[in-house]
C-alpha cells in the first residue's frame, strides 16, 4: 500500500471515529487537525481553538440570523 493510501485510510478511520463522537468535523477539517497534531501542536490548545471557533461560528450565525 502506498503512503498516500495509508494516510487516506487513517483519515477514513479517524473520520468514522469523529462521526461516532459526533464532533461535526468534515474530512478536510479533520485532515488539518491531524496534520497540526502531527506537527506537535498541543492537542489541548488545539481542541480549545476548535471549540472556540465553532462557538464563534455559531455566534456569528445567530447574529446574522437576527440582523
Amino acid at each position, binding site marked *: 500500500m502506498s503512503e498516500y493510501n495509508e494516510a487516506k485510510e487513517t483519515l477514513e478511520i479517524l473520520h468514522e*471515529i469523529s462521526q*461516532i463522537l459526533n464532533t461535526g468535523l468534515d474530512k478536510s477539517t479533520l485532515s488539518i487537525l491531524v496534520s497540526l*497534531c502531527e506537527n506537535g501542536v498541543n492537542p*489541548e490548545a488545539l481542541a480549545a481553538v476548535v471549540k472556540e471557533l465553532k462557538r464563534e461560528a455559531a455566534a456569528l450565525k445567530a447574529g446574522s440570523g437576527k440582523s
Partner: protein
Amino acid sequence: MDPDSAKRVPVLIERLLKQELPAEVIPRYQPYFLRLLASRINPTVVEDESQILNSILRRISPQNTAKLQDLYIRLTRSRGLSRRWAILYVLSKLFDDNSVAIPGSSLELLAPRPPEAPKIKEKIPIISKKGPDAQMPVLEKEILRDILFAIQGIEGKYITFSMLEDSYVIQPNIGVPDPIRKMVGELAELGWLYKKVVKYIDTNIEQPSLTSQSLCYALQSDLAEYYRLIALLEQQRDELKDLNLRKIMLWCTEPLERMKWLAIISDAAEGLKGGALVSSLYSYTLIGNPSVKAIIIRILDEVSMPIVQMIQQWMLEGEINDPYHEFFVSTNLATPDDRLWTQKYSLNTEMVPSFFTPQLANKILLTGKSINFLRRCCKEENWIAASPLELPKIHDLVGLSKWVDSAARVANAELVKVLFEKYRFKEHCNSIRKYLLLGQGDFHHILMELVNDTLKEKAEKIYKHNLFSILESAIKSSNAQFHDLEFLNRLDVKFLEVSPGDIGWDVFTLDYKVDPPLNTIFTPQAMEKYLRIFKFLWRLKRVQFSLNSYQAGREIIMLQKMKEIAPIIHSCLLRKTEILHFVNNLMNYLMVEVVEGSWAEFMKSLDSVQDLDQIIEVHNAFLDKLIMKSFLGSETDAILKQLLRLLEPALRFRQSQNTLFLSAKEEYDRLSKMLSEDEGEDAISRISLESIEDIKQISEIFSDGVNKFREQLAETDRNHLKFLAFRLDFNEFYSYSQMKRADENAKMMNIPFFRVEDDIEDADQEEFKF
C-alpha cells in the same frame, strides 16, 4: 510553533468559519488563535492513548463501543500517525460539543476547569485557580512522584520542605487545588515522621549503649517494612500505571499510624539508655489500642533484650557483662572480697526499670550477690545455677518475676546450705554464745579463778601470752576441752586500749576470731557488740565471784563464838547476802531471760531463713535485742550508769570484809591463847573498826543505789525491765525497808513525813560524791 503549522491555522479558521463570515474578517482572528496554540499549556497532557480511549469509551453510548474499539484497533495497525494520542485527544475533547450550551464571551477561553474535570481528574491537567501568580499547573503524575519522595524524607521538584510550616508542602506558587494540597500535606507528615525516626537511628546507632542500639535495630526493621511499601507503590506507579493520590492515601493510613508511634518512641528514647530507656518505653505499653500496643511491646522486647540477658547472666552466673553501665546492678571492682556482700554490688536506681517492684529488683541483686558470694567467698567455684524455666520477655512481668523467684530460690538455698553445713554457721553462733556470752559456766568460773590474780596487776604489766596460757589451762580444766578444736582455736584474749591507771580487769576481754566468709555475718561491728556484752557480763560475774569467794564456813562459826564480835560478823554477813542477792538476781535475769531467751528465738528464726540477707538480719536482731535488754542500748544509758555505780561498792565490799574477818581472826587467836578471864571486854576495840565503818557505808550506798536502780527500772515503759524490778523485790524486802527507814527518819527528826524524802535525796547525793 513551527511555521508549517502556522500556515495551516488560517485554513482551519477559514474552513470552520467560512459559512458565516466574509473572507476578509478571518485574518482578524488569526493572531489570537495562534497565540492560543502557542500558549504554555503545552506540557500538561498525558501522552497515554489507552487513557484517552477509556475516557471516550466511558462517554459514548454502548452500541457504539464495539465499533469504536474496532476502529481504534484498525488505527493502531496503520502507521500513518506518529502522534496518535494527540488527535484522539482533540476528538475526545470535541465530543458532545453539540450538547454543550455555548457561553458568550471568548474571554472565557482560559477558564480553568472544563466541566468534566472532576471525573477524569487524574489524567487531566490540574490548573490553578489561584490567580495570576500561581500559573504553573502541575500534573498529578509529577505530584505522585514527588509525594513518593516526600514520604521518604526527600525533597522533590514541587514538594519541598518548608521550615516555616515544619513539614513537606507543595510549593506555594504551584497551581494545585486545595484538596490536593491538603491530601499531600497529610501524606507528607509521613515523610516528616520518617525523617525524625531516621535521625534518631543515625545519631544513636553508634551510641555506647546496647539498649539504644537495639532500639535502633528494632526501628530499622520497621523501616524496612516501610521501604517495602514504598517499593510497592512505585511499582504500581511505573508498571501498572494504576496509582493516584487517593490510593497512596489509603495504603499509607496504617503505616502513618505506625510511623507516628515510632517517632513518639524515638522522641521518648532521646538521651536515655539502659533501664531508664526500658522504663520510658514501658509506659507506652499501657495504651489501650491493641495494634499500637503490639508495636510497642515488640519494640520493648527487642530493646530490653540486652537487659534481660544481663539479668539472666547475673542471676545464673553472677557475672555482669555491661560495658556501658546500663544494668541496674553496678559493681565496685575495688571492693575486696570480704566486703563483697555489703559493698561490692549495689542497685543503680536510675537504671531499674520503673515497672519492677523494689522487691523484684532487690531479689535480682541478691541472687547475683549470692552466686558471687558462693564462688568467691565460699570457694564453691564448681557450683552452677540453673533455672528450669525459660526466660520470659520483659513485658511479661508475672512470668519474669516467677523466673526470678525460681532462680533466686536455687541460688539462695544453696548459699544458706553452704553456710550452715560447710561453714557451720550455727555452731559458730553457739560457741560465741558459750564463750562470749558466758554460756559455758564452768569454763568461765575456772578462768575467773585463774585469771583473778593476774588481772589485779597494772594493765601494762600484763602480757598477752601469759593470759593466753591461762586461757588454755582454763579450757583444759573445764568441759570446754571436749569442744571441737575448730571452734576452740578461735578463742583468743584481747586487750582493749590501755589508758593510764587501768588495771588488768579494765582492759581484758575474750575474743572470738571468725574467718571469711562468716565475717560477712559476724562483722567487726557485730563482734564489737559481742565484746561489749561480754565485758558487762564479765564484770557482773566478777562481782558475783568475789562475793562468793570467801567460803570458809568453819572460820566464821569460830569467829561467832566471840560474843561481842558475833553481831558484827552477823550483820556483815547479812549485808553480803543482800548484795549477793541483788547480783545473783541480776545475773540470772541476764543469763536466763536475756541471753538464753533471745538465743532460743534466734535459733528458731534461723530455721526459716532463705538467704544471706535474712541471716544477717536475724543475727543483727538477736544482737540488738541482747544489747537492748542488757542495758547497753542508748535508751537505758542512765540505768546502766546507775548499775555500774552499784557494782563498784559491791567489789569494795569484799576487801573490807576480808580485813574485818582477818582482824577478827587475829583477835580470836589472841583470845584463845590468853585464856584470860576478862575475855572479850575490849574485843570490839581490837578488831578493825575502820572496816566495820566501811562495810556499813558500803552497804548503805549499795542499798540506796539499789533503790534508785529499782525506781529507774519501774519508770521505764519496757516490760522486761519492770519484770526485773519486780523480781529483785519479789518479797517486798526493799520497799519495806525503804518505808521503815523513812519512818525512822521521820520519827527521829520529828518532822513531817514529806520533808524526809528531801533529806534522803540530799543524803543520796552526798553519797554519790563519796
